[in-house]
């Protein structure tokens, strides 16, 4: 993309869309993480709602199915008192032949204030953001293999929660890095926040050496990659990778790259284990690790709602 100015920021450098972690200034990321903190406590109240987005309409546009991500955005918007409209576009206009931008124009005419977009095509949220009228914000909830910025932000929130700071950490990202929008967003976020050592590990077919260009260290052996790390971030192995000939079988994969208790023991004793869900137990992660004391997978879900509330309220009211 040949753009001189980041399309996510207004002329004062304030966030107006959240499309990608790449290119965001550090203080924008830190502000999102700081803002999320008070939102965590909202969930502990009898009334789990604050009036920050009262009267605003959030449209969840899911061109690709994801019940889990859609639900967390829906909960986040509802806890901010916004009205939420869920649209599963696969099942409606797209199948009738309406173009993406016609769909967006129609929904904008219904006085939307915010679009949360999940699309199988990389870059679709950018296209939408460049067509919505002034004042409407777009949040990328995952586009193709490109970015999943709110997932990376909730991972950063979780890491900061348990490790206090980013400087001095070694983080290993494990699995299908090549096809993962989560990994891509994480690598950008970790770099911007100052993590000195980011490792990626997996088979050569899924973690090619070319990743070194992103400033990370590439490993093809789990044991070497996990030794001494503070954070192990697992990626979900998608079943279609087996069919594509990139991997022999789930069992083979687990044997070489599954996060077992024995392998986790190579990390620092206080290392934490992240996973964006849904997990394949026995494929990328051993059950006892997923449920173990170093797993922060469920706190990630809780923090994820607070982080999405923070992003939405920053976009809605500045």
């Amino acid at each position, binding site marked *: 993309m040949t753009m001189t100015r980041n399309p996510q920021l207004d002329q004062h450098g304030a966030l107006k869309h959240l499309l990608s972690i790449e290119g965001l200034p550090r203080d924008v990321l830190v502000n999102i993480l700081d803002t999320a903190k008070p939102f*965590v406590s909202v969930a502990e109240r009898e009334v789990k709602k604050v009036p920050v987005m009262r009267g605003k309409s959030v449209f969840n546009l899911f061109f690709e199915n994801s019940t889990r991500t859609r639900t967390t955005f829906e909960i986040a918007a509802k806890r901010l008192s916004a009205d939420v409209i869920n649209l599963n576009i696969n099942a409606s206009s797209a199948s009738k032949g309406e173009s993406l931008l016609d769909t967006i124009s129609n929904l904008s005419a219904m006085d939307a204030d915010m679009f949360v977009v999940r699309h199988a095509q990389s870059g679709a949220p950018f296209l939408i953001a460049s067509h919505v009228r002034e004042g409407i914000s777009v949040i990328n909830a995952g586009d193709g293999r490109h970015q999943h910025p709110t997932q990376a932000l909730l991972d950063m929130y979780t890491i900061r929660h348990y490790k206090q700071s980013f400087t001095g950490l070694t983080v290993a990202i494990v699995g299908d890095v090549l096809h993962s929008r989560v990994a891509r967003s994480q690598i950008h976020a970790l770099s911007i926040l100052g993590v000195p050592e980011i490792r990626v590990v997996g088979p050569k077919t899924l973690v090619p050496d070319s990743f070194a260009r992103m400033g990370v260290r590439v490993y093809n052996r789990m044991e070497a990659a996990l030794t001494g790390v503070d954070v192990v971030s697992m990626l979900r192995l998608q079943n279609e990778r087996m069919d594509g000939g990139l991997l022999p079988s789930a069992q083979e994969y687990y044997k070489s790259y599954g996060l077992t208790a024995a392998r986790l023991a190579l990390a620092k004793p206080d290392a934490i284990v992240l996973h964006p869900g849904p997990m394949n137990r026995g494929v990328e992660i051993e059950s006892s690790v997923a449920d173990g004391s170093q797993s922060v997978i469920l706190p990630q879900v809780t923090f994820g709602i607070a982080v999405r509330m923070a992003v939405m309220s920053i976009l809605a009211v500045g």
Partner: protein
Amino acid sequence: MNTLPPVDALIETLCAQIRPQIDPARTALVGIHSGGVWVADILHRALGIITPLGTIDVGLHRDDLERSGLRTRMRASMIPFEVAGADILLVDDVLHTGRTIRAAMNELFDYGRPDRIRLATLLDRGGRHMPIAATFLGQAVSVGDEDEIVLDRAATGAHADTLLLRIAPRTGQRAPD
């Protein structure tokens, strides 16, 4: 022109008013960030309140979010007691328009339905936009519309508790509290 009284004296006045009107074993104190928390912290000890001190950040309930946006450095409200049925004494440093107190009460009700809420403030500078009054007041003062009253706290050391009130020219576009 700094004609504001010393904080110690105001706290003493407040304690004298509050003490006969509360039950230290039952009344709970909630300070409003940030100045109100400092004052509440001192009152909490001086009055021998048993219930742990609560703190509130009204950031998410402000009525000027559309105009002024979220503040950076918002803090989480911490209400470490059961609000339903509680006898609450809300504490702030300066009472002005009443908007902060309105927001704080809304926030409190998110936690439950208190039995009673009363309000204690060091100063009342008048200029109310809401039908709100302090139950316990250190002193009423008169300052110009262009000025704001700032409460400072000595950062560290033995004087960490030392609070100081001063008048400063109003800064920024934030709506008055």
